[in-house]
């Protein structure tokens, strides 16, 4: 005889659909690569979703926006790996129950941006993301945040991506800023050279290539270096198995 416990069913079928967000206080951010002016960027206070967007949440988006379904997607906006771990257009897959509440991955920048806009939100800028991700972890033991991050970077990707909230929460209340996935940022294609190359005699002035490689803020910060290299290697239509996103809401308008 099989007894189905109501609370177990509920736990299994529980779909987190409304995203809780937290306020990140205003701060400043010095880009990892030093620019000519080298003035830290001032960042206004903003709201950030406490977790990355999950598969079930993304399913709601593709249900409402047919052009973002696997079979309809324009290759300009997502490569052939788009949602490749899903069974079908509107089907994450019965065998994939354990990732329903895991971050959606294999999504492009264009898809992440479209989702954000559909939610009346935005993608975080690099500066916003880095400021938020630098928050002190609350519930884990670690020597330094950098050690924790590098420990994660060393590990192979798990065969089944864990659910959101499975790593640590930081001082702002954000979950999994490091340790679960990499995340898209609005301006991932940021320039990593120096502004006006006339003053930089060592480097070819005629294009950006490697312009700033020797001008990093802190050569010991390998974790930042990895993130900047990762972002620099992306194109907007790339869909990758460890790359997802979360949204922010700017409290003051940019435009």
């Amino acid at each position, binding site marked *: 005889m099989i007894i189905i416990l109501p609370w177990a069913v509920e736990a299994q079928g529980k779909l987190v659909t409304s995203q809780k967000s937290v306020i990140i206080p205003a701060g400043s951010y010095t*880009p990892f690569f030093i*620019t*000519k*002016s*080298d*003035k*830290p*960027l*001032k960042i206004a206070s903003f709201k950030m979703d406490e977790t990355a967007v999950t598969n079930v949440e993304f399913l709601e988006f593709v249900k409402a926006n047919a052009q973002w379904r696997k079979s309809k997607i*324009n*290759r*300009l906006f997502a490569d052939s790996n788009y949602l490749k771990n899903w069974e079908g257009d509107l089907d994450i897959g019965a065998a994939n129950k354990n990732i329903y509440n895991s971050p959606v991955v294999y999504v492009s*920048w*264009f898809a992440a*941006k479209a989702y954000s806009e559909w939610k009346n939100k*935005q993608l975080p800028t690099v500066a916003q993301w880095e400021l938020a991700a630098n928050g002190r972890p609350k519930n884990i033991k670690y020597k330094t945040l950098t050690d924790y991050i590098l420990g*994660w*970077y*060393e*590990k*192979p*990707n798990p065969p089944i991506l864990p659910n959101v909230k499975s790593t640590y929460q930081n001082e702002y209340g954000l979950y999994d800023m490091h340790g679960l996935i990499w995340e898209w940022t*609005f*301006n991932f*294609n*940021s*320039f*990593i*050279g*120096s*502004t*006006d*190359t*006339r003053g930089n005699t060592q*480097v*070819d*002035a*005629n*294009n*950006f*290539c*490697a*312009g700033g*490689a020797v001008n990093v803020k802190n050569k010991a910060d390998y974790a930042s*270096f*990895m993130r900047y*290299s*990762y972002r*620099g*290697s992306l*194109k*907007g239509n790339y869909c990758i198995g*460890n790359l997802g996103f979360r949204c922010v809401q700017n409290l003051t308008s*940019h*435009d």
Partner: protein
Amino acid sequence: MIKRLLLFLITALALISCSEDSNKSAFIGDSRAANTAPVGTLPAESLYSISDSFQTQDNTVITLDHFRGKPTVVGMIFTHCTYACPRLTADIQNIEDSLQNENGKINFLLVSFDHERDNPAQLKKFADSLKLDKNWTLLHGSEASVRTLSILLNVQYEKDGEGNFSHSNIISVLDKEGKLAYQKEGLNANQSATIASIKNMLK
């Protein structure tokens, strides 16, 4: 993850070592196919399928499909730029000069990174100061629209703490249907292949 890390390291090393190769260029797709595309339906790869609207230097609101029907040469700049952008613009003007026989058959397009300062009036002033003719359009767009276009054109840019922009210098050629057909990176580069790609579209 380890494999991927290695990949990043290799990418990073490649970035560091490629400064000598300053004039990278690449053919992207086959531009000839565009001539046979039916009017009305844009090919899937067309950049003109993005719905973002922009303002021209004459304060007209347009979407990118406005440029459909002619090859379009695109550069991304900001008008307060003192060094790279005037040179990139001059490079595009040289391309125009080399194609005097095709006058009126090609669009020249400059899109500004600087959505705060480069309003249509400022773009008009910039166009007049460089004597850019009627074949040129300068565009102002929202932060998100300009970012989207930069990602489609593989142009990297970043605003610094003083409101200026560091950016890569790339001249792109879109075919008549808005597909990215050719790109040339670097300032004062040899543009003969760029010019050849445009001529090929006008055959």
